[in-house]
C-alpha cells in the first residue's frame, strides 16, 4: 500500500460538514478550524480543496500562511483536495486560487496569529501588544516568558472566526514574495512521488473500458467469449458500458481488444468542413450540454462610424480544436470495500467529481470520498470525472478495488478539446490612423478575453455559441487565446497597412497603464526599436489582459527560405499580476505558458473524420519538444501595491499573435488561422 493511501486516514479536524457554500459556490467556512489546525506539537496543517497540478500552489499557499504565522514555509503542511477533509471548493481553474483561497488563507492565518497572541496574553497575564509571535512561539520580550503554539491551543479545533483579520501588506512580506523551491521537489526528482496511476490497494484489479469505434456509435451486439477466456478476466456490461477487470493492466487491455462488438455508427462531420459548420450552426437553448451564454456588447454607433472611416478592414480568423494532452492520462482508483465509495483520481474538481459519482450511482455525496493526489498536469482538461465513474462502476461489480488508467488514444479521443472557433473582425480608422469602429464576432470558441483594451468609441463585440462536432470544454486561458490571436493580429494588420510601427500604433490607443507598462517593458528588453531585420527573420509583438493580469510578448522568428520551416528564435515576455507571492513558481508558469502556447500557435490541431480522431497519439499529434524551444526571457513586474492575481493562464495568450505578426514581418505572408504552420512549414502560394 502506498504512503499516500496510508496517510489519508490520519487525524482530520475540520469535517466536511463544517463548511457551507455561499450562493455563488464559494466556500463559506467561517471558523479558523475549517481551514487551519494546530497540532499539540505546534505543527500547522492547512486544509484546502485546491489541487496541485504542477503550478506549485502547495508551496505558494504554504508561503502566505507561513508569512502570517511568522513561521518558515517548511512548518506548514497542506492537506489538499480530499472531499472528506477539506472545505468545499469549486475547482482549481480560472486563475482563482491566488485571488480567492490564497487571500482567504492569509486572513485565516492572520486571525490565528492574533488568537495565539491573545491566548498567550491571558496565560502570562500581560498585555497582547507586549507579545511577539515568532518561530512557533509567543514571547513576552521584557521577561522572556514564552508559550509554544501547541501549548496554547492544546490540539483543540479553533472555532473562532477569522473574518476581518488584518493581513500583512505585501511590502512587509518576508516569506511570501520570496523565491521558494517547490515543497514536493525531492519526491519528484527521487521518483517516489505517486500520482493516481501509481497507487495500489491490496487485492486491486486493473480495469479497461471498451470504446465505440466512432463518436455517437451505439452497441448492437457483444461477443465476450474470447476475452472471458483469459485467466482472471471478468467482462462487465451495463447498457452501452462495457468494461473488463483483470489481474494486471496488460491483461485488461488484451481482454478489451478481444471483445467482439458490433456497432451502429452515425455520420459525422470531417475537420475540413469545421469552420463553415460553426458559422452556420448556432446553439439553441435545447442543446445539451448547456451551451455557454451568448454575449453582446454594444457601444456608440458602429455602422455610422464605419461608414465615415477613412479606411476599413475586414478579416476572418480561426482556431482549431486542440488537446490538453497532459502527460498523466486520466486515471482513477475506486474502492467500495469500506462500505462507502472512495475514489482517488486526478481531477481539477474533486467536489464536482464527487457530485458526478453521486449522480451516476444514485447515492448521497456523504457516502462518497474523492481524493486527488498531486496530479501530472491538467491545463483545464481534467474538470470531469469519466475515469472516476468508470473505475467505480468496475469496482462495484468486481467487489474489489479497481484501477483504471486511460490509454493515450483514449485520452486524445474521449476527453474533451479546447473549442475551435471562427472570429470575424471589421474595423475602421480615421485619416490619422485612430481606431474609430470595432466589430468583433466570435463563433464557438468563447467569450474570455473578448473585450478590446484599446480605446475605440464605437464597438460591437459578440460571442455566438454554436453546435460543436466534438466534445469541448475548458482549456488553460479559455478563449482568451483565440480572441487575443484575432485582435492582436488585426491590430498588426492595421498598423502595417498604415505604415506605422505596431508597438507605436498600440500605445497610441491604449490608456490602460498596466498594459502599457508590460508592453514597454517587453519591447525594451527585446530591443524592439533596434531590432534587426535580416532576410528571412522577423519580429512580432502582441499584448493583452485577462483575469486581472497583463502580458506583452515579443517574438523573433526565422523562416528557412528553402524548406519554409518556421523557427521561433527568441521570445521576450513581460508579465504583471499584482504583488508576486512566489517568483520561482510564477516565472515557471510564465515560461511554461509560452511553451504550451507555442504548440497551439504553430502546429497543434486535432484532425477528425467519420467520428474518429486521427491525431490520437503523440506520434501524430505534435506537441512542443526540446528542438522547438526558443530562447525565452521572462520579465516579472512586481506590483506590491496591487492585489495578487493568478498567473497560470494569461501568460499564454500573447505568443500566437506575436509569432504570426513576426512571420508577416519576415515574409509578408499574413496567417489568420491557428495553428499557423500545421505541417511545420510555411506554405507560400
Amino acid at each position, binding site marked *: 500500500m502506498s504512503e499516500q493511501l496510508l496517510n489519508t486516514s490520519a487525524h482530520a479536524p475540520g469535517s466536511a460538514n463544517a463548511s457551507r457554500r455561499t450562493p455563488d459556490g464559494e466556500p463559506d467556512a467561517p471558523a479558523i478550524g475549517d481551514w487551519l489546525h494546530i497540532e499539540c506539537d505546534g505543527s500547522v496543517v492547512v486544509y484546502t480543496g485546491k489541487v496541485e*497540478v*504542477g*503550478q*506549485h500552489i502547495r508551496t505558494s499557499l504554504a508561503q502566505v500562511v507561513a508569512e502570517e504565522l511568522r513561521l518558515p514555509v517548511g512548518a506548514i503542511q497542506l492537506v489538499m483536495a480530499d472531499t472528506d477533509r477539506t472545505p468545499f471548493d469549486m475547482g482549481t481553474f480560472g486563475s482563482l486560487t491566488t485571488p480567492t483561497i490564497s487571500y482567504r488563507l492569509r486572513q485565516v492565518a492572520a486571525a490565528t496569529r492574533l488568537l495565539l497572541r491573545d491566548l498567550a496574553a491571558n496565560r502570562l497575564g500581560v498585555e497582547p501588544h507586549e507579545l511577539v509571535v515568532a518561530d512557533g512561539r509567543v514571547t513576552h520580550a521584557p521577561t522572556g516568558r514564552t508559550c509554544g503554539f501547541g501549548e496554547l491551543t492544546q490540539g483543540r479545533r479553533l472555532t473562532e472566526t477569522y473574518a476581518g483579520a488584518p493581513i500583512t501588506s505585501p511590502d512587509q512580506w518576508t516569506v511570501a514574495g520570496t523565491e521558494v*523551491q*517547490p515543497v*514536493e*521537489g*525531492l*519526491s*519528484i*526528482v*527521487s*521518483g*517516489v*512521488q*505517486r*500520482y493516481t*496511476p*501509481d497507487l*495500489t490497494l491490496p487485492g486491486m484489479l*486493473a480495469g479497461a473500458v471498451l470504446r465505440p469505434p466512432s463518436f455517437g456509435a451505439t452497441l448492437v451486439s457483444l461477443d465476450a467469449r474470447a476475452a472471458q477466456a483469459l485467466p482472471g478476466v471478468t467482462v462487465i456490461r451495463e447498457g452501452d458500458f462495457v468494461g473488463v477487470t483483470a489481474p*494486471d*493492466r*496488460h491483461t485488461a487491455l488484451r481482454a478489451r481488444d478481444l471483445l467482439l462488438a458490433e456497432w451502429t455508427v452515425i455520420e459525422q462531420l470531417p475537420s475540413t468542413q469545421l469552420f463553415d459548420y460553426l458559422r452556420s450552426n448556432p446553439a439553441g437553448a435545447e442543446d445539451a450540454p448547456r451551451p455557454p451564454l451568448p454575449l453582446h456588447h454594444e457601444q456608440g454607433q458602429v455602422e455610422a462610424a464605419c461608414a465615415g472611416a477613412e479606411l476599413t478592414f475586414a478579416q476572418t480568423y480561426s482556431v482549431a480544436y486542440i488537446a490538453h*494532452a*497532459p*502527460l*498523466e*492520462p486520466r486515471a482513477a482508483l475506486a474502492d467500495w470495500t469500506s462500505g462507502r465509495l472512495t475514489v482517488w483520481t486526478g481531477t481539477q474538481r474533486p467536489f464536482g467529481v464527487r457530485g458526478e459519482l453521486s449522480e451516476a450511482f444514485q447515492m448521497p455525496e456523504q457516502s462518497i470520498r474523492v481524493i486527488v493526489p*498531486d*496530479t*501530472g*498536469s491538467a*491545463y483545464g482538461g481534467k474538470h470531469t470525472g469519466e475515469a472516476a465513474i468508470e473505475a467505480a462502476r468496475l469496482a462495484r461489480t468486481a467487489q474489489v478495488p479497481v484501477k483504471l*488508467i486511460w*490509454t*493515450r488514444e483514449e485520452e486524445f479521443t474521449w476527453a474533451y478539446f479546447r473549442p475551435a472557433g471562427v472570429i470575424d473582425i471589421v474595423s475602421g480608422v480615421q485619416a490619422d490612423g485612430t481606431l474609430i469602429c470595432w466589430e468583433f464576432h466570435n463563433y464557438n470558441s468563447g467569450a474570455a478575453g473578448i473585450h478590446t483594451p484599446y480605446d475605440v468609441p464605437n464597438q460591437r463585440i459578440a460571442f455566438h455559441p454554436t453546435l460543436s462536432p466534438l466534445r469541448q470544454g475548458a482549456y488553460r486561458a479559455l478563449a482568451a487565446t483565440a480572441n487575443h490571436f484575432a485582435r492582436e493580429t488585426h491590430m498588426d494588420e492595421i498598423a502595417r497597412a498604415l505604415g506605422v510601427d505596431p508597438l507605436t500604433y498600440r500605445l497610441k490607443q491604449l490608456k490602460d497603464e498596466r498594459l502599457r507598462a508590460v508592453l514597454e517593458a517587453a519591447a525594451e528588453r527585446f530591443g524592439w526599436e533596434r531590432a534587426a531585420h535580416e532576410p528571412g527573420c522577423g519580429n512580432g509583438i502582441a499584448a493583452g489582459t485577462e483575469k486581472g493580469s497583463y502580458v506583452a510578448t515579443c517574438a523573433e522568428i526565422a523562416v528557412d527560405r528553402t524548406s519554409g520551416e518556421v523557427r521561433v528564435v527568441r521570445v521576450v515576455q513581460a508579465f504583471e499580476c499584482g504583488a508576486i507571492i512566489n517568483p*520561482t513558481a510564477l516565472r*515557471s*508558469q510564465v*515560461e*511554461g*505558458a*509560452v*511553451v*504550451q502556447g507555442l504548440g497551439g500557435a504553430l502546429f497543434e490541431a486535432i484532425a477528425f473524420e467519420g467520428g474518429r480522431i486521427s491525431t490520437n*497519439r*503523440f*506520434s501524430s499529434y505534435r*506537441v*512542443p*519538444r*526540446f*528542438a522547438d*524551444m526558443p*530562447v*525565452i526571457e521572462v520579465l516579472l513586474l512586481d506590483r506590491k501595491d496591487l492585489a495578487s492575481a493568478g498567473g497560470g493562464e494569461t501568460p499564454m495568450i500573447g505568443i500566437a499573435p506575436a509569432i504570426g505578426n513576426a512571420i508577416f514581418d519576415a515574409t509578408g505572408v499574413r496567417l489568420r488561422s491557428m495553428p499557423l504552420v500545421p505541417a511545420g512549414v510555411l506554405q507560400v502560394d
Partner: protein
Amino acid sequence: MLESVSCTVNGLETSVTAGPDVSLLSVLREQLDLTGPKIGCAEGSCGACTVLVDGELVRACVTPLAAIAGRHVLTIEGLALDQQLHPLQRAFLDTVAFQCGYCTPGMIMAATALLSHHPDPDQDMIVRFMQGNICRCGMYARIVRAIRQAAAELRAGKGVGDEP
C-alpha cells in the same frame, strides 16, 4: 505462455514471470512496484517510461520483458546512491526543472544516459538526445540548464557519493 526472466533491477538480482508480450514497464510497475517510470503513451514517443538497460536509454513501454534477460535495469528509484542524490537529481531541484513532475523520472534517466556517453554535451547535443522526452508543462529550457549544471559537476568530480 509465461516465461521467467532473471535480471538485475537497481542492483538487486531478481526473477520475474510474465507473458512474452508483456512490457518491461508493466513488470517494473506492477510486479516490482517501481512506479518512477511512468505510463505516458505506450508507443515510445513521450519518454515518460525511460529507464537504463546496461547503461543504455530504453523506453520501457515498448521493451519486451525478454529483452532484459541477464541484463541490468536502472530506474529512477535506483539512481541515488547511499541516500545521496545523483548530480542530475540535484540539478533538477536547483533549477526547478519541473512543474507537475510526471515527466521528470524519464527526463533524468534519459539525461543520465546522455552524460554517460557525452560528459560535456553542448546545447545541440542535449536537444537532439532529449528530443524523445516530452515535458508538457514546457520546462525544456530549465531541463537543458539542469543537464549542463550536472555535467559540469560530474566533470569536476562532484559525483554521486561525494560530500557536497
